[in-house]
């Protein structure tokens, strides 16, 4: 009995791994092409049919580069934090259910996900701190600031969802959305959740950690090429995870007009990813003190109002 459960877990593990990697790869490619089209240029067209192999070429190019350790860098802390970040992100992706294909369906799965998700910025800060580069230091401080100012509204929205569905298991949340998506039930909650996740995934207008026009590459300034590739890949996987969570919690996961199957989940995830890229092509980076104001006052107030509305049986 234990063995077939184990097999089922491994089977799920492989399927989710492939979807995560495939999505991260295409997310990178689609972002270059979409933002390219938006900026009236072609995007990669040289390798592969529509530049599809461009990411692969970058992948190998970065792998072949030499890893240089800065003198003052704390090597052990850096290695530990890089692989922890990668491990946690992949672990998060594993917890996502797809239609009737999931590992755990306990009633507190959502809390587990977001507790881990709130642990990542601390790891990123450690990573930045360990490379002892001035820009990485500032980026580490900002990562903690981002964490503090966006966690509370995020969790308040989760409490609102949990209260509405009386359970935190994603499957039951999605089932509750069979007739009406949570997007329409709590639009304010959706806005707060989207903003908080944008900050979590380091997307403009909140990409303070990797603000390329100020801090060169933020916490990645001194990382060598292979680890930079790993960090970039993990970044794309986190974007996939963010898009998937948004489509699961607010856009009624696998419920669609005709039959409800996991294809609907992917369509919604891709649509949310396109929306994130669109914001990245338009918006300007907010200043750190404006983000604190936005996080602490605007989002916090909105999430409390949202919670209150849900409590009133809106």
């Amino acid at each position, binding site marked *: 009995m234990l063995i077939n459960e184990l097999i089922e877990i491994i089977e799920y593990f492989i399927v989710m791994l492939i979807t995560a990697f495939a999505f991260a790869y295409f997310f990178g490619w689609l972002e270059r092409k979409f933002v390219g089209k938006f900026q*009236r*240029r072609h995007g990669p*067209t040289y390798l592969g049919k529509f530049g599809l192999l461009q990411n692969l070429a970058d992948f190998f190019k970065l792998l072949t580069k030499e890893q240089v350790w800065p003198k003052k860098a704390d090597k052990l802390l850096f290695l530990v934090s890089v692989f922890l970040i990668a491990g946690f992100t992949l672990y998060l992706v594993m917890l996502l259910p797809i239609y009737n294909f999931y590992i755990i369906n306990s009633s507190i799965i959502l809390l587990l996900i977001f507790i881990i998700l709130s642990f990542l910025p601390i790891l990123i800060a450690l990573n930045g701190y360990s490379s002892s580069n001035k820009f990485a230091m500032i980026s580490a401080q900002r990562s903690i600031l981002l964490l503090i100012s966006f966690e509370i509204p995020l969790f308040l929205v989760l409490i609102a969802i949990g209260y509405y569905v009386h359970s935190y298991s994603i499957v039951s949340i999605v089932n509750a959305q069979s007739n009406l998506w949570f997007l329409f039930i709590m639009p304010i909650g959706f806005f707060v959740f989207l903003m908080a996740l944008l900050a979590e995934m380091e997307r403009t207008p909140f990409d303070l950690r990797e603000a390329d026009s100020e801090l060169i590459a933020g916490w990645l300034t001194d990382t060598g090429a292979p680890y930079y590739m790993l960090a970039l890949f993990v970044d794309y996987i986190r974007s996939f995870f963010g898009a998937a969570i948004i489509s699961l919690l607010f856009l009624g996961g696998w419920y669609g007009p005709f039959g409800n199957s996991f294809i609907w989940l992917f369509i919604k995830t891709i649509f949310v990813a396109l929306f994130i890229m669109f914001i990245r*092509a*338009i918006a300007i980076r907010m200043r750190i003190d404006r983000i604190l104001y936005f996080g602490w006052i605007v989002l916090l107030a909105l999430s409390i109002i949202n919670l209150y509305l849900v409590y009133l049986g809106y």
Partner: protein
Amino acid sequence: MIENIKKIGVALKILTNKRATVEYPENKEILPDNYRGMLRLDIDTCISCGACARICPNSTITMVDRDTDRGIKKYPEVNLERCFFCGLCEEVCPPKCLVLTKSYTEVVSFDRREFIKEPEELN
């Protein structure tokens, strides 16, 4: 917040513009006819007066002597590494035999000596 929505509206409209970049190796831009590109020397009409060598701001043209049937004559030799195609030599040349053509044949090579174009090569 209203202005941000208006901004997204404008952004969507901009999305419909056609691409402005050209895939260079396949199709190239069309150049105007008075484009100042590679130099071209018409050896026979050159009276080797050296005006181009003296006018060149970067002194990239040096007079090199070649033996022709009428004895040794000096001809201009251009060092394309230093030339920035300002066209002063073209204007000052009395018989108008040194001309800047429209072809910007990619002046690329792995060997710096190939940049120094002999008078015969300037065609």
